[in-house]
């Protein structure tokens, strides 16, 4: 690939003061992710996965190093510029869904669209809710939805503004196996259709197998990288869909 990488990370360090000394969370990461690529980040707890994701999103600031999105360094941007960047360029999916409890499902999806003053926000939100199979539940509050349904709302919200980059932090981590598989299916489908670059943090190898590339982190460093070929991905997909039962249970 010769064009500018969508995400490029150079010599990235993140240290946190802890008990009087510095704790190194990320220890010199170099990483380049092409447009449209799907990268899974794997690693045990404390390996620095979530911190890496937070840094890519401009939610946290590195101790040193560079993060470039479409060639533009973001580590030195102001809070305001970062906020604007996130609203236009990034979509998020979290392990704990992170829906706003005082907003209905539809309002949660509307939120990023309203931030961009999107002219047809309502229609777009309804369309996305339909795409995740929740057209009839838009007026429900998060507490009235099951975990799987909440995550589907979160997916609809993440894709609402058609962001070029999607960052997903253990999106199936809080869900049971079958519900998780269903969510992954929707996620992959949406990504496919939008051509979104995706970075997904997980510790589930089965989930990671779906990615174009797998980055293994350990102690803040990239331990190894693996590329899936086409056949591997298809096999993983097949395994996923054959194992997926049709329904999930509402809590």
């Amino acid at each position, binding site marked *: 690939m010769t064009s500018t990488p969508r995400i490029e990370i150079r010599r990235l360090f993140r240290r946190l003061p802890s008990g009087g000394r510095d704790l190194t969370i990320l220890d010199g990461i170099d990483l380049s992710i092409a447009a449209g690529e799907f990268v899974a980040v794997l690693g045990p707890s404390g390996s620095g996965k979530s911190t890496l994701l937070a840094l890519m999103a401009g*939610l*946290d600031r590195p101790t040193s190093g560079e993060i470039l999105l479409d060639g533009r360094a973001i580590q030195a941007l102001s809070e*305001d510029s970062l*906020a604007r960047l996130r609203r236009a360029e990034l979509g*998020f999916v979290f392990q704990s869904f*992170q829906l*706003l*409890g005082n907003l209905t499902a539809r309002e949660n999806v509307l939120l990023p669209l309203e931030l961009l*003053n999107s002219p047809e926000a309502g229609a777009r939100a309804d369309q996305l809710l339909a795409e995740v199979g929740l057209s009839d539940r838009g007026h429900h509050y998060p507490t009235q939805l099951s975990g799987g349904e909440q995550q589907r709302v979160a997916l609809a919200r993440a894709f609402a503004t058609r962001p070029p980059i999607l960052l997903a932090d253990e999106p199936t981590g809080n869900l049971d196996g079958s519900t998780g598989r269903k969510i992954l299916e929707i996620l992959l489908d949406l990504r496919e259709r939008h051509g979104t670059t995706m970075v997904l943090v997980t510790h589930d190898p089965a989930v990671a197998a779906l990615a174009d590339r797998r980055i293994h982190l350990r102690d803040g460093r990239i331990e190894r990288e693996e590329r899936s070929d086409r056949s591997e991905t298809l096999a993983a997909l097949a395994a996923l869909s054959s194992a997926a039962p049709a329904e999930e249970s509402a809590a």
Partner: protein
Amino acid sequence: MKPRTLLSWMLRESRGALGRFTFFVACLAVGVAAVVAIAGLAAGLDSGIRSEARQLLAADLAIESRRALPEGFDLLSLLPAGARTAAVREMVTVVAALPQNGKPGRSQLVEMKAVEPGYPFYGKLAVLPARPLAALLAPDAAVVAPELIGALGLRHSPHDRALDFRIGTADFHVAGLVSSEPDRVGIGTAFGPRVFLSMAGLERAGLIAKGSRVSYKTLIALPAGVSADRLEKIADQLRAALPANEAYRVETFRQAQPQLRESFAQVGRFLGLVALLSLFVGGIGVAQSVRAWLAGRLDAIAILKCLGLRPREVLALYLGQTALLGLIGSLIGILLGVAIQAAIPHLFGDLIPAALIRPWQPGVLLRGLGLGVGVALLFSLPPLAGLLRVPPSRVLRRDAEPLPVHRTTAGFAFLALAAGLLALTFAQTDSLLLSAQFVGALTLATAILAVAATLLAKSIGRLPRFSSIALRHGLGALARPGAATVGAIVALGLGVVTVLTMSLVERRISHELSRELPSNAPSAFLVDIQPAQWPGVRALLTRSRAEKIDSVPVVMARIASINGRPVDQIAGARRKRQDPNGRDDRNDRSEGREERGRRWALTREQRLTYLQKLPADNVVVAGKLWSDPDHGEVSLEKSFAEDLGVGLGSKLGFDVQGVPLELVVTSLRTVDWSTFGINFYLVVEPGILEQAPQQRVATARLAYGSEQHVQDLLAASYPNVTFLRIREILSKILGVLQRIGLGVRFLGGFTVLSGIAILAGAISAGSVRRGREVALLKTLGMTRRQVATAFAVEYALIGGVAGLLGAATGAALSWGVVTRGFELTWEPEPARLVLAIALTIVLSVIAGLAASLRALERRPIEVLRAE
């Protein structure tokens, strides 16, 4: 972000937080209600007086003085054709029923008013029978207030249908009853019932002797169609034509009773500050509600930031939310304030007439709204400043706590709070000095309470463990870090301080005024005694077994010059300095009380006496009494000399009823006024004033219960002598004081209410934690009663600490006010203090348990399942 989007987000943000916002709104509404009620009453009175100004003056303009218009003064030549005038004379005197069987009739102090036909030019005089006053007032007739009939014991009898009584040396019959007159208003109470006479009647009564205390008024009605400018011009012409001193005061109805309005405004300003205090205390509750609310919104804020909301947009969102809530709270407060105003005539009918209540005044309502929203925003600033530092990475790591607020941000927030409070107080008082004092004192009291509460909470944590589980748990809860009890204690404490201080001060002063007079003090004043009457009056007093009879001559005079400079010039210069336009507006607040005191000292009619030896309650503090053989000497009371701006060696020129006299100040004295002895600002060396026209005043101590009899005897033999009972005068002052005190305590109650709302809010904010606590305690085997007891102990402790701190601060404050402000001795009132503490405990236990009901009701399994 578009404003519409922001608004819809704000509305969404409010969902599900109604319970929490109830306390926000309640804290604000209580304070706004107090402010609006007081401002509304004050403005209602003021606009009432303005709109009724012509009726209150009963004329278009009036000339008032302590003496008749100058000989040969041609008033009508200065007025446009068609103008009418009516003279009015007012004096306080004693009238009596006719003697029966040789015994003197019952007597009564009255406020007498002799009027010429035409009075009143404006306004309605309520008289029975309903005929013009002039038609009723034959030279031998009087129109009186109905209560005089009872006071004198007048009765219709078969032979005597006319209800006769005696004024001065003549008999009058009651020709009618008067129940209200347009030009009689004021905060103070009257000396006695009204008696109207005609001028001829006043002449018949023979009461006007040189030196009698009569106030002269000439009412003027201009022909219809005279413009306001013309009115002012005529007034200026009159001022120019009258002798150039302040013995004559020309007032137009357009000035609308400046003194009356000023005295109402002063009371209004004072009560307004007390009301503002409850609003500020409510602000503490607002800050606390916002803090608790934001603590529960940290995740949502992190999500919003993650989705791309800029920090300043987050701030705008929550600031807008606060403003919206402030608006709601203020609107509710305004409605409450209006309701209070509407209720006041029903509660205190004799205090403010219903006609002067105007609850819907846009200016007042807007001020309530502005103050309410302002307080909401100002007090939310410090907690909202923390929003800027909520890390968005909290969406990934729940443990990412908000970073500490930048020191500059925090400093700026508190500075903004202080400046804002000052601005709000200034809006309420119009006086920068007063605002600074008020905000300074409030800050100091808050700081003392906060430090004391924090120290107490800390030291409680170090107490040895109690065996009672309820006590142990309650104490532990109080000492828990972040228990939000300090705010509640401060707020509640401030409420206690307000109510207690006012009640202690008022009780102390009431006590001082209502207690038995000191055993050596006189119980009656006798004024307007002609010198020739004195031996007879003294004999009468002696026969009535009066003790401590004392009498001195009084000569009326005016100060004409100081060190050769005419006093008119000095007073004029002082007034010009105050008011470059030369307007005669006494309501002008730029003229300080001090300056007015000085001008009054310069221009008023002075009472002089002459004595060889000073009474015992006088102490010469500078110079020496009667030490200069070459000049006529005068001794001045020290603070009076300061008001005049003179000292030892100054030359004072006097106008003694037309005769010039120059005296040198050779001594300054202090006077202990609380002995009720006869005392004078100006005492002249003997040998100078003996031949001047004069009267005597006397004091005497009469046996308890004999005053009425002595007054009856005096009225029969010396009808021109006015007999004043000190006890009665004091009780009238007491009445006024108690009314103001009632208002203050009523408003102070709002402060306590705010404190209670804050306590309930703090408790309810912790209800989730509390619910978990209850579940856990119940799981461990505690009964609901035991849990409730543990909570009650906690709330009782909060109330106890707040009550204790409030009582201590209140006692200290009342000590300061009583000993410094009123120069009385302070008496500790332990029973009051204990009562205040006990009431605070009871209130806070009730409020606390009420706010914890939901937590107490929860079953353990509900809570544990939700974990």
